[in-house]
């Protein structure tokens, strides 16, 4: 059980995907113009990650080594299409905002990375824990980035006004440069915290 918990928690801080592994940057930078978009994208990715980890760890002994990547991609792509259909059916406004980045979850390297590095070598329970941890870590990161950009670029968080009346939003925070600046600052902050921890 301890091992399962460890696999789950590593995705939340030690190996949190966009900030530590610096993986999956395309959606991280592109859709985080608002906190809500970050949550939506993160949860869609988490769903695909958990389901594909589950299926791949079940099939791990049946899949021949030579075609494993092709097999992984088929499994991942199937779940991405399911997510896309579900979002079209139940979260249409969010689906319109996330647009092309939903189908692009297929090529999100976190998902193939976890399939190849973890699910194809471990049993079902740790694989689910790994997928869930990584997915939630990804969701948290995107939500944090989205919240910061929304706060500075629009004066709101999750659509609720939090800044004072005379606050003039920085338009640049909602544009691509704002995403890079924000990501860079978060990365350096996390590295600073880690180096502090190590020196203690």
């Amino acid at each position: 059980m301890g091992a399962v918990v460890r696999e789950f928690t590593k995705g939340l801080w030690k190996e949190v995907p966009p900030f530590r592994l610096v993986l999956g940057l395309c959606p991280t930078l592109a859709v985080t113009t608002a906190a809500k978009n970050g949550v939506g994208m993160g949860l869609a990715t988490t769903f695909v990650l958990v389901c594909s980890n589950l299926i791949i760890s079940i099939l791990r002994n049946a899949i021949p080594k030579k075609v494993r990547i092709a097999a992984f991609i088929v499994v991942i792509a199937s779940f991405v299409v399911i997510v896309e259909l579900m979002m079209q059916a139940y979260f249409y406004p969010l689906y319109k905002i996330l647009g092309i980045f939903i189908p692009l979850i297929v090529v999100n390297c976190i998902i193939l990375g976890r399939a190849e590095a973890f699910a194809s070598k471990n049993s079902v329970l740790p694989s689910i824990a790994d997928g869930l941890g990584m997915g939630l870590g990804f969701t948290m990161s995107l939500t944090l980035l989205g919240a910061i950009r929304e706060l500075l670029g629009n004066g709101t968080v999750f659509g609720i006004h939090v800044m004072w009346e005379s606050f003039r939003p920085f338009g640049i925070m909602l544009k691509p440069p704002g995403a890079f600046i924000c990501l860079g600052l978060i990365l350096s902050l996390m590295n600073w915290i880690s180096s502090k921890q190590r020196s203690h």
Partner: protein
Amino acid sequence: MVFVLTAICAGSALVLAYANKATKPAREYQLLKYVQGPSVKKVLKGYDNDPIRDVIEISIGKDEKGHSIKIFPAKKDGKIIGIAYSSSAQGYHGQIEVMVGIDMNGTITGISIMRHSETPGLGARVVEPAFTNQFAGLKLSGQLNLSTRGGKIDGVSGATFSSQGVVSAVRKALELFPKVKKEVS
């Protein structure tokens, strides 16, 4: 090797076919609600039902893509007082798709442009209320034409083709109206 990959692909195809079928009604409803719905609500007046839920599909006169036409009825106390359906015609760039609301006497209650690819700043200005509001109250007659052709509608300046496209789409909708009326009432 080949067998396993084939099995995985077949399994995936099965699951996706099922997911596609299972979500189809919900997806179509969302499309209605967020794309066609707002237009329908704009062009119909004085109804107390949900025209989107009460949609009627009839097969007379297929649209450009060969789909049967969807008729959105506006009802008051259970009686149909008007209907809305989409119509399209050639603009300056491609098709202009217009939702047209018509009361049971054949008078336009409103129009709303749903889709177009006209030039931004010129032809695209046909979506503005200043242009679209001129249609309400007109019937299929000589008045339903651009003012340059003796009608009552002032085209958007510099965008005669786009304006004419909208007028043509609305006329097309009204020409179909007698048939549609027979079908729904």
